[in-house]
Structures are given as C-alpha cells and as structure tokens.
C-alpha cells in the first residue's frame, strides 16, 4: 500500500533590525570581505540586491556572516538565475556543503533537503521571514516550490539554525525576497524551455524611489516530465509525472523616517502535478494527482536606533506579523490493492506575531563591543486533514507556540566573538510541553586571513501533526511521542585570501529519540521514537579565482550517519558528496558580446542507502553539467545549459523513484535598466 503525499506548511516571522547589526559587524571585523559585509546588511527574509554580480545569471553560493548566528556556518545561495537555468530550489541548495537534496523525479517534482545527516523534517524553512513549518509529510518540498521571485537562500548549518527555534534540529533555510535600495525602475521577462516538455514564463517589475519600493511578479511553468529510465535491461517510460505551477508575489517597502521602515510581502503559489508511483508499480498511481494552494503574507516594522543611550549604546526594535495558508489535496482512483479510491484533503493555517529588541554598545577605548538580543514570538497553528478511501483518517487539531530568546555577543579586539544564549519554547494544544534550547559559539580571527569558529547547541523538534495524530488502519501517529532533541556541534576554519576562499568544518549531531515512521506489525506502520542517531562528518569548500576571467570551485562533504541500533548508514544520506566546477569569461576575446561565459560542473554522490537497514542501495553517480551564458546586448541574457551529460538513467535517490537522464534547457532573460 503506497501512502503518498501529504500536506503542508506554515508561517511565522523573523525580522532583524539593521543599523546596530551593521555596527556590530563593523566592530566584529572591519576588514570583512565584501560579500560578507553586504550580507550582514540584509535583514531576515529580505536580501539586499543592489550588488549586480558579474555572474548575474549564475547560481553561486558564498559563506556569509549572519548577525543572528555570528559564529555559525552560514552560506548564501543566489537564486536569481535559477528560473532560467532549468533548475529548482533543490538544485541550488544542493551546492551548499553539508546539504543534500533527495530528488524524487524530474524538474518541478518533489525534492527534500536535509542538513548534516538529518532528515528533511529536521530542517526549518522560512520564506520572506515567515516560518514555513510543515505540519505533515516528508518535510519542506524544495522541488515543487517555485524559486521565481526569490533572491537568495540562506542556509544555516547545525547550531547556526538555532535562532529559528523549534524544528531547527539540524539547521534551517531562509528563503529571501528582496527589494533594491537604489532608486530606479526595472521590468524583467524570463522564459525557459527544455527537455521533458518544460516551459516557464515569468514577468516582474520593480519601482524604487528614495522612500519606497514596490516589486510585483508572476510566473507560470509546466513540464510533461515524460522521461525514460532503466529498469534492468528495459527502458521504461515514466508516467503521470507532469506538473504545472503558478506563482505571484508582491513586495513593498516604505521608509517612514530615517529610523523607521515598514515592509510587507505577499506570495501565492498554486499547482497540480501527477504523483508518479514506484517505478515497479507505476500503474497503481497512474491517475494520482496532487494539488496545492498556498499563500504567505508578512508585514514588519523596524525601528533603528529607536533609543539612544548616549555612550551606553542604542536599542533597535522590530515587530512583525506573519500568516500562511496552505491547502493540499491528493486523489487517486486506483490503489495497489484494487479499486479503492483515495482522497486526502488538508488545510493548514498559521499566524504569528514576533517582536524583539537589540542593544548594541561599543567600548572603543577597550576594543570591546556587546550585542544583546531579546526576541519573542507567538504562533498559532490550525490543521485539519481528512483521508477517505480504503483507509480513513481524520485530524483536526491546533497548536500554540510561545518562544522567548535571549542572547549576548561579546566582541573583543576585533578578533574574538563569543555568543551565548538560550530560547524557551512552550507548546500547548492537544499536547503541552516546553523546552530550553541553549546555544553558544565563538569565532576567533587567528590571523587576518584565518578564522576559527565553533558552535554548540541543544536543539529541539516537536513531532509534526501526522507523527502525532495520523490514525488510519495502516499508518498511524503516536500522541505519546517524545520530541526530538539534538546536541549539535561544529568547529571549523575559514580563510579568505585575495584569490582564494576556503572553509573546512567538522560537525557532529547526536539526536535523541529520533522519530521515524516504521512498520510495527505486518499491517501497521507507525511513528515511533528510535534509539540514538549520530551523524559525524566534515565539510570542505574552496573557491579559487586565479584570474578575473576564471573561477574554480570545489566542495566536499563526508557524512557518517547511523541509527545506533541498526549500524548502517542512514537512508537518504550519502557518505560522500562533492562538486567541482569551473567558469571562464570570454567577453572581450569574443567581439560583439557583453558577456560570454562557459562553465561546467561535476557533482558526485556516493552510493546511497534506500532503506533503514542499509540493504537496498542506489549506485553512486556523477552528474555532469555545462552551460553557456551569452549577453549579446545589455538587455538580454541567454543561457543554454545541460544536465546529466553522461545520460545516466539508472539513478535514484529514493526507492523506486527514478531520476531523468540527459536534459537541455534554453533560458532567456530580457530586462530594462536595473535599479
């Protein structure tokens, strides 16, 4: 019996004031690299997009310093080029060391990201500052979620994600919208066409004045998903693998005064897709369809330096409201066991209110500075889900979460930063509990070019609603589940030289009482707490720019993740992942083009276990990709890209969910003057 799909996501909010953070960063490291300095000026959920990188139509990542995790390992991924590269959010996140994305099928279909050996449920995702807690299912879907209109994804690995509170057991991802600061107007049209019947068209416009900004956009995309895969010696057509998706968004900003800013954002997505069955039993789900609608809205106010305390520093405040609504429906007119029709419908609504203050003081005489933070959040979630068909289940529940967080960062001698803090999470509803989430970190600039960082936190994830309350005859939750707790720690080095940026990190996650859906009898699969789960590993990455026309990058992650009672590598966690890539800019050598860039990537993934016992394995593979980017005139970018050039068609990340072979995409971006 194949249970598929499920449900959805949510909301909240997290906004950070700016000025004091910028001051803190200035105190932390006045010679911070440019990219980092820029990123620290961005507030949560909203990216400063003024910088127009030379590789604008290229997905890139870079290590950054985030003021909420100043000692943590945080990486930004530029998402602006994803839509015309034939890639999805998962492809972009997969470039970050320590992150692995499990793909279930081709472009537009489900994919799930995990961090440092965790599973996708153990990762929180926020969008535009609004927390997207997934009430049920496999975790946040980075495959079907459209990246259109998103500027960046900020990935917090391990303890760095602790500021997200409940749910961020192994890390967190922040999807960031963005409005430029500089005045100007822009209109952009983007289009994509490619393999497997893929098309996408999007239009967005931005108006930026000195005191306000507005950005709106919409995109529609679709794919037939009709690829073939290898089943032994046979070539088999993937069926019921199509998808279509529409997204619309609006972001606005008003500077009420030089100290006060109001920002609001809204995003709506809807889609329908086939949910292809296991490769060995495609017929059983040939008519299965999943439909979803979701809206996310946020409004926030920042009050910079709202209180001046003379030589005792300044205090910033912020308030934020967030809301998310999500509906999902899954239907199937046949099942493996016969003619039982299946219909699952769920609604999820969450609202949140958040506030906080930040006190910054700089003792120049002593080369000391201090940053104190206090944050509070209230979140209310409503979830109802019905399953009708061969088996039945009803969930109608709610949950309130109250969070308070305090932290203090001491910066000394422009080379040392020490952070300590704790959160208190209090949940009530059908189930009540509370948890302390302490954390600490240190960064030390040992040399001007070399920084040592280390972090430790005791993170927390309460069970999702399906893990608690699912109640069908064959698939059940358990209201008595114990929440997951993890001790997560990392230590690493970062170096930034003129032409080389590199990072190497060792990490460890020890998860108590991990929750898995596993069979408990011949007919029943149930959510259960297992014995301890330990993930140890190392991440290494480097970007080398030997010439202004050339860039080389490499990344590697080793992860050994095991349930102690099984002793095998955890399913969905490859021991080895890596990537090497190169870019070469040819403009100037080739006449009549503003830019001509060629590039190639090789992504390696070692063999992966597909079951919890480690007895079912998928082979290792190397995904070779290449692209050419041409800017013949300054208002047009053309990108031709290829993926899986070796045309491997026997690869899977998830049991009996084959991945597509070689694919080609042509993307266009037409734009007026950039602001």
């Amino acid at each position, binding site marked *: 019996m194949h249970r598929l799909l499920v449900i959805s996501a949510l909301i909240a909010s997290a906004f950070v004031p700016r000025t004091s953070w910028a001051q803190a960063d200035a105190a932390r490291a006045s010679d911070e690299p440019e990219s980092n300095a820029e990123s620290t000026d961005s507030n949560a959920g909203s990216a400063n997009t003024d910088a127009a990188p030379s590789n604008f139509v290229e997905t890139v990542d870079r290590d950054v310093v985030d003021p909420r995790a100043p000692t943590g390992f945080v990486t930004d991924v530029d998402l602006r080029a994803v839509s015309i590269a034939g890639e999805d959010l998962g492809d972009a996140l997969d470039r970050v060391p320590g992150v692995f994305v499990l793909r279930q099928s081709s472009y537009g279909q489900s994919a799930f990201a995990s961090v440092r050996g965790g599973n996708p449920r153990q990762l929180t995702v926020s969008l535009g500052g609004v927390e997207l807690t997934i009430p049920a299912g496999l975790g946040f879907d980075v495959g079907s979620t459209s990246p259109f209109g998103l500027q960046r994804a900020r990935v917090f690995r391990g303890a760095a994600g602790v500021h997200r509170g409940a749910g961020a057991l192994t890390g967190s991802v922040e999807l960031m919208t963005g409005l430029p600061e500089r005045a100007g107007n822009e209109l952009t049209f983007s289009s994509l066409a490619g393999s497997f019947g893929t098309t996408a068209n999007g239009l967005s416009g931005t108006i930026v004045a000195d005191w306000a900004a507005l950005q709106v956009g919409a995109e529609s995309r679709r794919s037939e998903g009709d690829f073939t895969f290898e089943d032994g010696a046979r070539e088999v057509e993937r069926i019921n693998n199509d998808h279509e998706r529409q997204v619309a968004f609006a972001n606005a900003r008003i500077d009420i005064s030089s100290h006060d800013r109001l920002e609001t954002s809204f995003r709506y997505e809807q889609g329908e897709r086939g949910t292809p069955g296991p490769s060995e*039993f495609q017929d059983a789900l040939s008519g299965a369809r999943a439909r979803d609608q979701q809206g996310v809205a946020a409004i926030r106010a920042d009050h910079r330096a709202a209180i001046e305390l003379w030589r005792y520093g300044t205090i910033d405040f912020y308030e934020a409201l967030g809301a998310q609504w999500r509906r999902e429906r899954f239907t199937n007119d046949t099942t493996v066991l016969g003619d039982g029709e299946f219909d699952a419908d769920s609604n999820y609504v969450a609202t949140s209110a958040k506030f906080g203050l930040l006190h910054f003081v700089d003792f120049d005489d002593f080369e000391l500075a201090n940053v104190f933070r206090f944050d509070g959040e209230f979140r209310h979630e409503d979830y109802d889900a019905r399953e009708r068909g*061969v088996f039945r289940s009803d969930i109608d529940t709610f949950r309130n979460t109250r969070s308070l967080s305090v932290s203090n960062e001491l910066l000394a001698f422009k080379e040392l930063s020490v952070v300590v803090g704790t959160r208190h999470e209090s949940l009530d509803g059908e189930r009540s509990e509370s948890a302390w989430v302490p954390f600490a970190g240190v960064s030390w600039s040992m040399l001007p070019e070399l920084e040592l960082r280390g972090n430790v936190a005791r993170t927390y994830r309460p069970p999702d609603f399906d893990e608690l309350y699912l109640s069908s005859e064959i698939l059940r939750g358990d209201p008595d589940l114990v929440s997951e707790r993890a001790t997560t720690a990392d230590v690493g080095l970062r170096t930034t030289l003129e032409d080389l940026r590199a990072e190497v990190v060792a990490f460890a996650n020890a998860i108590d009482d991990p929750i898995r859906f596993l069979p408990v009898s011949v007919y029943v699969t149930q959510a259960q707490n297992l014995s301890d789960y330990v993930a140890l590993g190392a991440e290494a990455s480097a970007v080398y720019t030997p010439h202004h026309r050339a860039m080389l990058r490499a990344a590697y992650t080793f992860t050994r993740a095991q349930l102690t009672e099984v002793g095998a590598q955890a399913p969905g966690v490859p021991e080895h992942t890596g990537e090497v890539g190169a870019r070469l800019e040819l403009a100037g050598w080739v006449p009549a083009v503003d830019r001509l860039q060629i590039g190639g990537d090789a992504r390696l993934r070692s063999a992966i276990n597909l079951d919890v*016992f480690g007895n*079912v394995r998928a082979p290792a593979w190397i995904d070779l990709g290449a692209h050419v980017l041409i800017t013949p005139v300054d208002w047009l970018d053309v990108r031709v890209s290829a993926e899986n050039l070796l045309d491997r068609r026997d690869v899977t990340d998830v049991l009996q969910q084959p991945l597509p072979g070689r694919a080609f995409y042509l993307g266009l971006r037409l734009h007026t003057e950039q602001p």
Partner: protein
Amino acid sequence: MTRVHTLLALMLSVCVMACSEPDEAAERILPGGPPVCPGGAPVPTVRIVPELATIGLNPNVVRPLGDGTFAIAESASNTVSRWNGAALEQLVDVGGSRNPYDVASTGDEAWVTNYLSQTVTVVDLGSGESVELEHPSLEDPSGVDRYRDTVVVSNVAFNAPTEPYGQGSFTVWDIATRAVVATHSAAAKNPIFVRAFDDGDDSYLVASSSGELFLSDDGAGVNSPGAVEIWSGDARAPNRRVFDVPQVDDPQIGAPGRPLLAPNGDLYFASGTAPVLFRLNPDSGWVHGADDPLRFAESSGDALHHAAMSDRGVILITSFNDDALYLWDTSCDQIMHDRPIDLGVTSLLEGPHGVAISSESGTTTEALFIMNLSNVLGRVVLEWD
C-alpha cells in the same frame, strides 16, 4: 599555524572514527536441551546466520526448486531470485506491476503467480527464458504448485479492502501444453495456498482457504469461514474432501496457512492471524481445529506466520510481528524453546515472512528464511546432537 594543524588533526580523527565500517551481523547460537516430551525430538542447538544475502524487495516466499536451489519471490521488485547455497542470482524479472506472489518448480521450469497482473510467468530454469501466460480464470493468482502432470494455481479473487471477496477458484494448467485444462471453485473464500505432496499414485494436493480477512484497529481477523480441501486423483476432475474452518468467537483464530505434512501423516497449518497451529488428520478430520487450536505463543495481534516441517516432525514457524522463530514438536504438540528465537539483527521490525527446509541429515536440519522488511535471506541450523 600550530592551532590550524591541531584543528585539522581533530577533523581527521572525526573522519577516522566515522569511517570505520560497522560490524557484520554475526552468527548466533542458542543451546539445545533434552526433549520436551517423552519420545520427542531433543531440543536442538540453534545456529542462526541472520544475513546470508541481500535479496529483492519485500520477499514473499522461499521455496525449493528441486535441484538443490531455492527460489525467492520478491514481490516489490517484481523479480524472482535463485539461491544456490552460496550465491544469489536473479532468475527472472517478471515485469512492472506484476507483484509475484508464489513460485513452484515443475522440474525444468518455475511457475510464478503474478498477483496484480492476473498472469502466470513460466521460467525455463536452464535458459532463464520466460513466457507470461494469461487466462480469464486468473483472478489475483496466489498459490501455485505442481500436482501430477499439472500446475494448480489458486485465485483469491480479492476485489478491494472495501468490497467482498469473490468466491475464489483454482486454475489447472497442463504442464506439457501450458493450456488451462480445468477450473474449480474454491470451497471457501480466499484460497491462498496450495501444496502438493508427491507420493506416487497416492499423490494429493492440499489447498487452504483463509476466508475473508479484515483489517481493523485491533489487527487482522477473519469474518467468513475458511476451509482446507484435499484433492486426489486427476486435477482435471479431482476427488475433493473439504474440511471446514468455522468462525469462532475470537476473529483472529482462523486463516490456515501453507499446508505442512508431519511424519505421522497429519497436516499442520500455521494461522495467518493468530499464534496458533491447526492440525488435521486427513482420514478422521480436525485434531485441533479452529475451536481447539494449538497455541505456540501468548502474544496476540495480527502476527503473520509461515512454517516449514522438518523430517523429524519439528515445525519451524516464523512470526512476522516479533521477528521470531518458534520450534514446535509435533510428536507431542509442544513448543520446544521456552522463548522465541530472535531472527533479527536490529531492534527494528524486520519481518520474517517465510521459511523452507534446505537440507537435512541425521544430525542437522538447515532452513532458509526471508525477511520481508529488511530484505535479507538468512539461515537457521538445528543441531540435534
């Protein structure tokens, strides 16, 4: 840069610790003892090799092919593999959406029932070539066995969890022509298993029907009578004797499984829904029927059981829900170990789902078992000295 070196050394040590390979599952030994009853077999020393080989997904049955090798129907992989005592090879990929359920040898060929496609696949055991047979009478084909010059396939006619079962039937194929030569209705619904016992002219076939199964929050049970029928003579027009398995107060008591033949000629059946055995004397009827089953464990629930009979009259019973093996002495109908024998290698449910005797000598009995969830083939050796 000394600190850098220290850190790198720390990271290297993390990797070294993490890179070490896990221990392989090792053989386990349980000591034996004296017989549990006068005249009974001694309690054997039990050696368990829990992971002989990794097999295909959700294996449903392991059965001898008659040449010393064993076939394993791997339902979710749509494959049948062959174990030759040392290595595993794929015998046939029956194709997508087939769900192979059972497999039986006719000597040169293996016949595979494909539950979902309403077909039967016939595989040449020499060349590996296969052909898929269709027939209108095939309706969720499940059990299969060679009987004299025919192959008998049972059809459970399971419509859907929400619909009533069909009556169930048997399709009889002529081995030589691969033509259907007869169809017969089942005596009770859900005829899952057929097993022929070859004794020359006295050969006979036993079919067991579970009756309708239901699934509830309390587990699986039966809500219609089952039956055991014994065929003799030509399968085209067999002489059939039917032994009813009536419903009793406890709905979990029922669902007789694959027929087993004891040395004294009695038939045993492990229940699919309760930790009990049924015993049938073919001449006189039920010795221990649904109203008086032989209980081999106190656990309740929907534990699925499969069993195999040794020459010594000891039944090896796999119990899905507790990853256990039970030994039952038919000479006195008593359990042989005071606690279940753990077949798993983890504390997670691995789901033993079939057992077959692979060799017997004067001092040992060897059997193969399959794990439905962890997808491994294991071996259990009973040492009688």
